[in-house]
C-alpha cells in the first residue's frame, strides 16, 4: 500500500500528518519543539551545505551567529556593460562578503512564494532559486517523516492558501513553484487542497450532523476563509472561498514600525538618508542581514561619532552586526502572543549596546492593527455575502491558526455570530490533520 501524507507548509509553522481511515496521526517532526508535531518554517543552510529546519536550525543559528566576529573580503561578482551612443565600456562589480559567516537562516519562505518578486538568493557558492529553498525544506521534512513512519512516502497533499496573489500570473507561478519543489523533494504524487477546506475536513470528523461551517484560518501569512457544508462527505459543498494576505507577520511589523523603531533612531533629525532607510528596514526581517556590510558599518560609526543619537544608532548597529534580528523578531512575536491572554506585556531585548524595553498593552496593539482589522472585516463580510447565506444560516464558525486567537478577531466573530457558534479547532494542527484526511482519500 502506498503511503500518502498531508503537509501543511505554513508561513510560520509546518506539519505532517497521516490518516488511516479511523484517526489522524500528527507526526512529531520536531522533537526539540514544545509541540513536536509543529515545526517552524525555518531553513538554515550552513557553509558546508548542511540543511537544517525547525528548532535545530534555530539552535545552530544562535550558536553560530550571535555576536560572532566578521571579516569582510572584497570579491569580484561580475561585470556591467555600458553601451551608449558613442561609448562602450565594461565595469567590474565587487561585493563584500563576510568570509566568517557560518550559515544563512531563511524564514517566511511562503511569503516569498506569495509576493512573486523573490527569485532566489546566493548562499555561499551556490545560487538557490525559491524552488530550491522550498525543496530543501521539504526534503528534510520528508526524510524526518519517513524515519518516523519507517517506510517511504509516496504522495502528498499540500495545503495552499485560497489566494496566493490577486495577480493571476503570480498566482500560477506560486502554485507551480510549490508543485515543482514537492516533486524535486521526492514526492511522486502531489495534489493541493485549500488550507481552510483542510481545516474543515478535520472538523467534520467531530460532527454528528450536517452543518454550514465558516472556517476562519488565520495564520502567520494569510487569512483564509471557507464557507462550506460539512458533516456528510458525500454532500460536501463549498459555498465560497476568500482570503487576504494579512496575518501575524503583518501585525509584528506594525508593532515594530509603530513602537520600536524610535529605539533605533527613528524620528531623529540630521541622519543620513542611508541610515534612515536602514532604520525603516528593521521591520523587514529578511532584508536586515543584507545591510551588514562594511560600508554601512562605517556609516553607522561615523554617525555615532558625529553625536546624532549615538545611543540609538549604537543599538541599531548592534542589532544588525551582532545578528540579533532573529531574536528581536522573536521577542516581538512572543509579546504579541502573550497579549492574547493578558492586557499588558513587555517587549524586552537586552544585548551588547542594546537595551530595549517597551511596555505594551492590548489597547495599543489593537490600535496599531486597526487598519488590518478593517480589511479583515471587509473580507469576512464579503465572503458571507458571496456564499449566498445569511449569517444566521451559518451553524458554526471554526477558528484555526495562531492569529485566530487574537482577542480582537475573536470578538469580531462573536459580535457577528454569537459566542455559542464560535469554536476553536486545534490552532496549529487542524490544517495538517485535514490534509492528512484528504491524502488518505487520494488513495
Amino acid at each position, binding site marked *: 500500500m502506498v503511503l500518502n501524507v498531508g503537509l501543511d507548509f505554513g508561513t510560520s509553522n509546518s506539519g505532517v500528518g497521516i490518516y488511516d481511515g479511523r484517526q489522524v496521526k500528527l507526526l512529531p517532526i520536531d522533537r526539540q519543539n514544545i509541540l513536536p508535531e509543529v515545526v517552524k518554517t525555518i531553513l538554515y543552510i550552513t557553509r558546508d551545505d548542511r540543511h537544517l529546519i525547525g528548532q535545530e536550525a534555530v539552535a545552530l543559528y544562535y550558536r553560530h551567529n550571535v555576536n560572532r566576529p566578521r571579516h569582510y573580503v572584497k570579491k569580484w561578482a561580475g561585470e556591467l556593460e555600458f553601451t551608449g551612443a558613442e561609448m562602450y565600456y565594461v565595469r567590474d562589480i565587487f561585493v563584500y562578503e563576510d568570509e566568517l559567516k557560518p550559515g544563512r537562516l531563511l524564514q517566511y519562505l511562503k511569503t516569498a512564494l506569495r509576493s512573486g518578486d523573490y527569485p532566489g538568493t546566493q548562499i555561499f557558492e551556490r545560487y538557490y532559486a525559491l524552488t530550491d529553498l522550498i525543496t530543501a525544506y521539504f526534503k528534510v521534512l520528508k526524510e524526518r517523516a519517513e524515519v518516523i513512519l519507517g517506510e517511504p512516502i509516496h504522495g502528498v497533499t499540500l495545503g495552499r492558501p485560497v489566494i496566493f496573489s490577486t495577480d493571476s500570473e503570480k498566482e500560477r507561478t506560486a502554485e507551480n513553484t510549490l508543485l515543482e519543489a514537492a516533486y524535486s523533494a521526492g514526492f511522486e504524487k502531489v495534489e493541493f487542497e485549500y488550507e481552510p477546506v483542510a481545516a474543515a475536513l478535520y472538523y467534520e470528523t467531530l460532527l454528528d450532523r450536517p452543518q454550514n461551517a465558516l472556517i476562519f484560518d488565520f495564520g502567520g501569512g494569510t487569512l483564509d476563509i471557507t464557507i462550506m457544508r460539512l458533516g456528510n462527505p458525500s454532500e460536501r459543498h463549498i459555498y465560497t472561498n476568500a482570503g487576504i494576505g494579512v496575518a501575524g507577520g503583518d501585525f509584528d511589523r506594525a508593532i515594530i514600525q509603530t513602537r520600536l523603531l524610535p529605539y533605533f533612531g527613528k524620528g531623529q533629525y540630521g541622519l543620513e538618508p542611508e541610515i534612515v532607510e536602514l532604520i525603516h528596514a528593521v521591520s523587514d526581517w529578511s532584508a536586515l542581514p543584507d545591510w551588514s556590510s562594511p560600508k554601512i558599518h562605517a556609516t553607522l560609526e561615523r554617525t555615532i561619532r558625529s553625536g546624532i543619537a549615538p545611543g540609538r544608532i549604537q543599538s541599531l548597529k548592534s542589532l544588525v552586526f551582532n545578528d540579533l534580528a532573529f531574536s528581536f523578531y522573536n521577542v516581538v512575536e512572543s509579546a504579541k502572543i502573550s497579549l492574547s491572554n493578558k492586557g499588558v506585556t513587555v517587549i524586552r531585548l537586552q544585548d551588547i549596546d542594546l537595551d530595549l524595553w517597551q511596555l505594551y498593552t492590548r489597547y*495599543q496593539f489593537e490600535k496599531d492593527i486597526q487598519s488590518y482589522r478593517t480589511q479583515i472585516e471587509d473580507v469576512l463580510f464579503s465572503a458571507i455575502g458571496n456564499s449566498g447565506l445569511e449569517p444566521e444560516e451559518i451553524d458554526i464558525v471554526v477558528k484555526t491558526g495562531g492569529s485566530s486567537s487574537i482577542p480582537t478577531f475573536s470578538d469580531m466573530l462573536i459580535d457577528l455570530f454569537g459566542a455559542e457558534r464560535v469554536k476553536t479547532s486545534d490552532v496549529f494542527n487542524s490544517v495538517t490533520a485535514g490534509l492528512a484526511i484528504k491524502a488518505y482519500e487520494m488513495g
Partner: protein
Amino acid sequence: MISPGQVEEWIREVGERPESAVEIIRHISERLAALTENNERLLVENISLRNREKVEEYKSRIANLEYQLELLKRQLGGLPDIDASPDGLNLLIYDSNGRILNIPLDFDNVLQGEVFARLAVKSFVNGETPRLLVTDSNEELLCIFDSGRAVTLPVSKLGQTEMDALSWESAVLIEPQGGEELVTILPIAKMALANYCLQVSRRGYVKKVRESFLETYVANGNVGKGVVSPVDQTCEMILCDEADLLVMVSYEGSVGITPVSSLPSTIHEVFRQKPSDYVITAFIKGDRSAFMAVTQNGMIFNREAAWLAQGEDGKTKNRTILSKARLESGLRIVGADTVNNDDRAITLTSDGSLRLSNVAEMLRAGALFDRESTLNLLSITTFSN
C-alpha cells in the same frame, strides 16, 4: 521609551481592563529599579572619569598591551632589524646607574682561563660593583628599577661593544629617573613557560607572583619596589615553577633554601639575617650537580647539590658556608650558583679583567687566583653552553 501619548494609552488600557493596572505598575517599578541600579553604576563610572582614575587605568592597560605586543614580536622573531647572530651568547655588564655593555661571546677567540677583555678600572666609582649576565642574543630583557619602573628591550637593540674598547662610555644607558637604581635584569623570552616569578630582596623578603599576573604587576609599577623596609632593595627576579627550590645566598655566607610551593603570594620574610648581612644572589636549585660559592679573594666553596636539601614542613632551611673564623678574617661571598661540570663562568676582577673559565677546572682548583694575587673578585656569572 515613554511618551505622554503612551501614558495616555496605558490609562485607556486600564479603563478597558482594570486588572491591567496592577501589571503596568509592576512592570514600571521593575524597570525603574533596574534603571536606578544602572544609574548608580554610571555615577560611579562618572566619578572615576572625573578623578582621572579611568585615564590611569586605560594608560596602564595600553602600556600593558604595548608590552605584550613587543614581547610577542620578539618571541616570534618578527623584527627585520635584529642584527645579532640568532644563536649566539652575549655577555651583559650592567650597573645600578642603568649602564649596560653588550659583548658578543666568540668562544673561538677566547682562551679558557685567560683574560678576554678588560673594563677600564676607573669605571668603578664609589665602590660600585657591576653585575654580569650571560644571555641569548635574541633574548628579551626586563630591566627593573627600585622605583617600580621596568623597561623592556631586546638584547639585539643594545648595540655591541668591541672587547678591546670596553668602557662605560660605550654603554647603552637606560637613564634612571629621580634617583632610582637599576637593581636587576630578568631575561623574559621564556617567561610563558614558567608558572611564577619570585622577587627576592636584599633583606630576604620574597614575593611570589603568578606568571599570568606578572604583566599587570609590571605595568602597575609593582616590580622592583614592593619591599617592606625603605632601606631594603630588590636583589633578584627569578622565573620558576611550583616544584622548584629557591636558594638565597648572603654576603656573610648564609644559605637559605625554601620550596617555592610554600612561599606565600604576599611579601614575606623568608630568609632572616643578621643586621650586617644581606642577600647577594638568589636562584633556583634546578637539576644541577653541584653548588658553588666564590669569595672576594677567589676562594671557591664546592658542595654537592644535595646539600641544598629543603627543610621540613616547607620551612626555610638555613646553612652556612663560611665558618666564624673565616668571617672574622674578612672573607665574604661575592657570587654563588648551582652548576654542572661542563658549565662555564665569567668573572670580573678589581683590575677590570674579564675571564672565561671552565667550572670543572674552577671546582678542581678550589681558587680563582694564585695565593700571591692581590686581585679581588667583583662579580661572577655561570652559564651552560
